[in-house]
């Protein structure tokens, strides 16, 4: 890959601070990598000799495997650390764990953590690149990038499209990253949730708020349905599961009133019969599995860009032609 890079960030921590040009660069880079993963030999030597650590403080299958596959397609070495099996259990702090990983001469740390800001704190202390794979309720930038990639692939553009995000917005890092990314690209975003699951002043991010699912569906080009995390002890008021499905669940009947070719998205894993009916998840409008495939291309792009920028940052002092 010989992109003329406008990417100068050592880390990818959020989408809030990215410019439209940077977002476009990631999506364009992901486009070239998507071609790679469609080949019979799905591997390029781009990150050969680089070491990537997946440091996961929260259980995750989808995101961790996606990062692992992306790293392997780029020929990097991958180490997975799940906190259940590590010294974190013995009381080691996040920063100490990070520094120890770095002492192993690791190039990129992909971190998932249940505390908002954990990736940012780690990035401040490490020379290695840090990629946020989800921090608390804050952001999940690669998930939003793969959602945007999928939307662009299907609709041909992001500017001017209408996307509704439905579900627990208050506790969702996926929602926040999507809001920043999509609004920067010129999409019109609506969020839809029960009042207590809409965080205060969310409209200041440039989104429209509705509490009616029919309103969220009307005229939308795509609907991104968030998982209701009933298992999470948030300490906040949560609706009953059945009540939620009745009021906010995406059903075939509701979808019939929307645009015929509306895209149905979900970051997974799906609670069938709670936020989405099974026949919708498996139906013709669903692009849920394509999102998963695109996730690999997007994560390859992100790994590539931060690795390249980090190399540049740390070699900057050396004289160059």
């Amino acid at each position, binding site marked *: 890959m010989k992109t003329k890079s406008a990417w100068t960030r050592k880390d990818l921590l959020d989408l*809030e601070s990215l410019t439209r040009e940077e977002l476009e660069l990631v999506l364009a880079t992901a486009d070239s990598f998507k071609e790679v993963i469609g080949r019979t030999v799905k591997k390029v030597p781009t990150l050969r000799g680089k070491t990537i650590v997946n440091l996961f403080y929260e259980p995750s299958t989808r995101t961790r495997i996606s990062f692992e596959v992306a790293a392997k397609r780029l020929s990097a070495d991958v180490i997975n650390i799940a906190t259940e099996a590590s010294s974190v259990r013995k009381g080691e*702090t*996040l*920063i100490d764990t990070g520094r120890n990983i770095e002492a192993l001469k690791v190039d990129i740390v992909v971190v998932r*953590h249940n*505390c*908002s*800001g*954990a990736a*940012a*704190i780690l990035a401040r202390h490490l020379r290695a690149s840090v990629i946020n794979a989800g*921090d*608390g*309720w*804050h*952001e999940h930038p690669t998930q939003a990038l793969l959602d945007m990639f999928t939307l662009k692939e299907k609709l041909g553009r992001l500017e001017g499209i209408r996307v509704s995000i439905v579900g627990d917005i208050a506790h969702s*890092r996926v929602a*926040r990253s999507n809001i920043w990314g999509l609004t920067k690209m010129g999409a019109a975003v609506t969020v839809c949730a029960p009042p207590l699951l809409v*965080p*205060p*002043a*969310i409209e*200041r*991010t440039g989104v429209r708020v509705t509490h009616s699912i029919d309103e969220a569906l009307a005229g939308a080009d795509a609907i991104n349905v968030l998982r209701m995390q009933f298992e999470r002890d948030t*300490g906040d008021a949560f609706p009953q599961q059945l009540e939620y499905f009745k009021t906010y669940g995406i059903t075939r009947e509701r979808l019939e009133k929307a645009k015929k070719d509306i895209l149905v998205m979900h970051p997974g894993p799906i609670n069938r019969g709670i936020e989405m009916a099974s026949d919708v998840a498996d139906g013709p409008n669903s692009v849920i599995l394509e999102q998963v495939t695109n996730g690999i291309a997007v994560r390859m792009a992100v790994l590539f860009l931060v690795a390249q920028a980090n190399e540049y940052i740390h070699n900057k002092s050396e004289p160059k032609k």
Partner: protein
Amino acid sequence: MSILIRQGRVVDPANGVDETRDLLVENGAVAKSSPEIKAGAETVIEAAGKIVMPGLIDMHVHLREPGREDKETVETGTLAALCGGVTTVLAMPNTEPAMDSIENVRRLFEIIQKTARCRVLVCGAMTLGRKGEQPVEAHLLERAGVVALSDDGTSVDSAEVMREVLSRAKESGLLAVCHCEDRLLSGRGVMSLGYMSTRLGLRGIPREAEFKRVERDIELAQMTGCPVHIAHVSCRESVDIIRRAKKKKFTVTAETAPHYFSLTDAALADFDTNFKVNPPLREVDDAAAICDGLKDQTIDCIASDHAPHTENEKEIEFDRAEFGVIGLETQLAAAITQLVETGTLSWPELVAKLCVNPARILGCGRGQLGVGAPADITIVDPAASWQVTKQDFASKSRNSAFLGRTLKGRVTHTIFDGKVAFARYSPSQKQ
């Protein structure tokens, strides 16, 4: 021991003084104060261009001793106080053990006797173990030497218990210092609830958690006749409530801390835990309301809420970090920068907030520089700009909300009990 402070601008609002004067200190007290003093002295301080004011009285300081000497001790905390121009502190009772019995209070006074570098007044706990359940024996604590009661760090949740506490405080002539927080509302929140908490995905604390409790404590103060002092006012609704109560001549006083008029929750954008405080940093309108409250006498005092924590407790995930910042060494400069430089307060008004009013509320007979007054004096170079750095602190801890900021106004000398207890020389003067 005699000290002559020459040609400083003496700001002493308690005596209606704001002019260039000489000040002579002898035997621990102000001996003379006039435009020109032709006497000799063992120490002469040239104070032309400087502000000469009473030593600061900081009503809200966590010295952490006994129990958490890794964060701060009476010695390091009072040394930090002197560096910040503070000559009297009110030590908060949330030590380990808490200041809830005469034995604990006596033990603290022994430590103070041995190690304190400035005057330390002791605040007793309101309830045993600060659990909010059983009121302390206020009259015994008063006899042991405490001047106020507070469960600071937490609020007494039960109105019934609080009423009893206030009634006992009233009988014993003690001030009640109220930490106003409804924990059922603040819950596990780590910052102010609003647009910033939405952006950062951090659990928010609604402002109601503070002002509903301010309202309750003022009501209970009226029921019992006990004077209450509302600690660390941070939001505009609290300012309004206190303003209304003062109009009705209720016996309420209030303080705020420099971070509440200098900073907003926008500072949290990088998840820097040095901005994690309780009550939390609020919004621009709140900081403005705090300034208005200081100007119109709704808020009587500025206190640091000096809350030292170790790096291990601060340099971690935001959710897990302790609440609180140190402030003894920056509060005067922060107040000068944010209030005097902006024209919000005049110098005499600032001195009232830092010296005169706390002295009045605590009844400690200081905060002024009239002839015969105890010689607790702070000399400030109002033009000195300085950058707050980690290396500079005398405090054991480094968790300052002002790190990296440039502040205006620096303490050059602190005179405590008639002696130069702290002097800072700029490099050019050293030689």
